[in-house]
């Protein structure tokens, strides 16, 4: 069984390698035809292994769910690695080899349990969708082969995170995901802004990752093993200080990867990448990795109360702030990006409130509907040729399929029944509501969280409605389109997208609409009613404002808050002033210091030597009398010495 997990991880990796090295092989034809051939080859190389991985992941989920757990252990080590895997807490582990590091060994191994199986399905399905969608979206792009290879690499890394049985192995996948994210955001690197966004994404997440690594160290050292199962088993023996330190450090990585306050700023900028990437990696999968990790190590978090409080406060801040920011954006993709931050904060809230199942449920449904929303947005942008909503309007007639599917997506986002978001958000809210009375959180944090969550429901309704109305209703302003920048789209024809783009949308609309029904039995109707009412309140307010003047932006209802919201409360500027500029100034200072002080000391020592020799050389002035004087003085000294000591 583990070998299938291993295959699921390795296949995309091999496909990435093949895609990078082989798609232009043989011959380096750089003409139109060569490009097309290469793209076609790359598409097959990318899609097929991802598809197989998806099947494998699905099979893993199915068999594991069907109770094969703990049966099968595979040792697939080529060089005598020890396969000491066995039934863990509730899953199958397999260890390929153990790497001795000198202290705590790293065991290269995989584990499949409920959580991993579920997440694996989500990842592979989304990856498959993005691969297929990209074939159409990036038709004719010369760099499609590398692009698809990076997605494959990403898939592989994410699957590694999902299936990893060892925290350091997990970290490997975790970082490679960050790299892929960097490479994909920077896909259109001709534009400096894209390049900057890519760098920012990588750096911000890496900042969190360092904390994450240290958290792993703390946990690993306390448990004397990096194996997740061992760590979780050792949690009860750990001191609370250790746990709090470890989980807070882990939280840094989670905040970075899942774009939570205060490390969220990279996500809106990451929308500079191609839309499929924004949709599926930066909305559905990679950003969910942080939530996934918390769920993975949930016992450790549950045992560390203060960490959950911190998480709750961060989530509360993040969900409301991001939702408000979303309300003021003009760029459709940025609206969705801020919405992603807000929804991820919901998941974090559920985790903080003590319900990891609600978080994972919301993760899955959010993956589905947010992916749907982004792909629809991609279709819209593809059609309009601009990211800005002020360029859109009245598209429901021209893009009927996109209109329908995106409506489903927005409904799910707002949490309107029967869309999937309704059920998952209801569970989250119920969990948070419960946390107010009981649970791991302190009262203040829980109250703050609950209030924030409700407010966010309203604001979510508002910005969803605003985006929906401004995109599909009203009339399209007649503006002379500028030359398309290389970050947007190739074609500017207002009609439905090609089939490879259309079908993933339609397919994704189904789970976005129906996924929630599996948990229909668990709905807390009271909470649900309240949430729907609040959401409709927000939506209604926006609609009322929009009705009064369909051409202008309903965001004007924010009044003086609008500017701060649009700039996302100036967090970027603050970071710019607090971190980026000082670091750069420090760097320049260091270079100057290095030249003047450190190297100056070196050169100075040389110069002092030369100067001293110059001084000595002054006596060598050619005056023979001086020489004789010195000679005689020396003889005198010697004779005095000889007389006195001889």
């Amino acid at each position, binding site marked *: 069984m583990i070998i299938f997990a291993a295959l699921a991880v390795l296949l995309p990796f091999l496909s990435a390698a093949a895609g990078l090295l082989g798609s232009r092989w043989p011959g380096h034809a750089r003409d139109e035809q060569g490009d097309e051939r290469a793209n076609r080859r790359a598409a097959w190389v990318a899609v097929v292994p991802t598809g197989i991985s998806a099947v494998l992941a699905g099979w893993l989920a199915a068999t594991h769910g069907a109770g094969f757990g703990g049966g099968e252990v595979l040792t697939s080590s080529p060089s005598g690695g020890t396969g000491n895997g066995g039934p863990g807490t509730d899953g199958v582990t397999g260890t390929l080899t153990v790497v001795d590091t000198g202290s705590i060994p790293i065991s290269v191994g995989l584990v499949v349990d409920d959580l991993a199986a579920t997440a694996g399905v989500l990842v592979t399905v989304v990856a498959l969708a993005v691969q297929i969608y990209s074939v159409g979206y990036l038709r004719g792009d010369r760099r499609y082969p590398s692009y698809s290879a990076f997605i494959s690499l990403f898939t592989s890394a994410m699957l590694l995170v999902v299936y990893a049985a060892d925290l350091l192995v997990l970290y490997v996948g975790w970082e490679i995901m960050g790299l892929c994210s960097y490479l994909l955001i920077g896909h259109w690197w001709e534009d400096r802004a894209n390049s900057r966004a890519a760098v920012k994404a990588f750096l911000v997440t890496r900042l969190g990752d360092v904390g994450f690594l240290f958290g792993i160290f703390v946990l690993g050292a306390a448990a004397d093993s990096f194996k997740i199962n061992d760590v979780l088993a050792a949690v009860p023996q750990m001191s609370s200080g250790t746990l709090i330190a470890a989980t807070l450090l882990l939280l840094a990585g989670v905040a970075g990867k899942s774009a939570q306050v205060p490390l969220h700023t990279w996500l809106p900028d990451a929308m500079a990448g191609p839309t499929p990437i924004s949709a599926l990696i930066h909305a559905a999968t990679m950003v969910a990795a942080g939530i996934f990790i918390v769920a993975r190590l949930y016992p450790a978090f549950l045992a560390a109360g203060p960490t959950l409080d911190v998480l709750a406060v961060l989530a509360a801040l993040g969900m409301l702030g991001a939702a408000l920011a979303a309300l003021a954006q003009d760029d459709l993709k940025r609206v969705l990006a801020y919405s992603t931050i807000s929804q991820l904060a919901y998941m974090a809230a559920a985790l903080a409130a003590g319900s990891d199942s609600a978080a994972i449920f919301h993760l899955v449904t959010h993956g589905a509907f947010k992916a749907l929303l982004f792909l629809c947005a991609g279709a819209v942008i593809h059609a309009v040729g601009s990211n800005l909503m002020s360029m859109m309007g009245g598209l429901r007639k021209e893009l009927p399929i996109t209109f329908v599917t995106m409506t489903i997506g927005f409904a799910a986002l707002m949490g309107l029944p029967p869309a999937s978001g309704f059920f998952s958000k209801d569970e989250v809210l119920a969990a948070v509501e419960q946390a107010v009375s009981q649970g791991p959180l302190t009262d203040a944090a829980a109250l703050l969280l609950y209030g924030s969550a409700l407010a966010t429901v309203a604001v979510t309704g508002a910005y969803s409605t605003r985006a929906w109305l401004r995109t599909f209703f009203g009339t399209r302003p007649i503006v002379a389109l500028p030359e398309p920048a290389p970050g947007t789209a190739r074609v500017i024809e207002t009609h439905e997208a090609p089939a490879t783009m259309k079908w993933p949308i339609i397919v994704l609309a189904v789970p976005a609409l129906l996924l929630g029904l599996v948990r229909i039995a668990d709905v807390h109707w009271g909470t649900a009613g309240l949430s729907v009412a609040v959401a409709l309140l927000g939506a209604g307010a926006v609609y009322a404002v929009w009705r009064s003047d369909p051409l202008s932006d309903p965001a004007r209802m924010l009044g003086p808050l609008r500017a701060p919201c649009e700039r996302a409360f100036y967090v970027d500027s603050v970071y710019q002033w607090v971190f980026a500029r000082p670091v750069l100034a420090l760097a320049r200072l260091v270079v100057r210091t290095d030249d003047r002080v450190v190297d100056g000391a070196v050169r100075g020592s040389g110069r002092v030597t030369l100067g001293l020799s*110059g001084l000595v*050389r*002054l006596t*060598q*002035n*050619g*005056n*023979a*009398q001086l*020489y*004789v*004087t010195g000679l*005689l003085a020396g003889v005198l000294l010697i004779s005095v010495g000889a007389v006195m000591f001889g």
Partner: protein
Amino acid sequence: MHVVYPAIVSALLFSIGVYGVLARRNTILVLMSVELMLNAVNLNLVVFDVWLRDRLHGGQVLTLFVIVIAAAEIGLGLAIVLALYRNRQTVDLDHLRALAEPSPPGVTATSDATPGTDPAIPGTALAHATSGDETAPSAAGPERTSGRREDS
């Protein structure tokens, strides 16, 4: 006769000679001071010869020899001084700096600014040694440039 008296006189004369050699600028005066030193030595030789009653009269004979050598020395020395004077128009010791290191740029040395004189000097090694490279207009010229090349 106490031996100390002539010995002290000779020591003082010698020191005076030392002072003259070190302090006088004119080459002829330096030669004179050298003579003073030689005479101090002579006095010593004589007094020790007398004191030790040397059967071979080594001290006094040696004094005679020294006097002879001093005469030869003064003859040669004056010849050199004359050659020097013909070449440089000066006999001042501190203007004769051909022994100097080529000074680094910036440090001004009191080198002789005498333009190259008649190269048809009697071709003795000494003339070459004192006046530096005959073919160059100034002794410091080529050496200074080569020195700078090494510095950089």
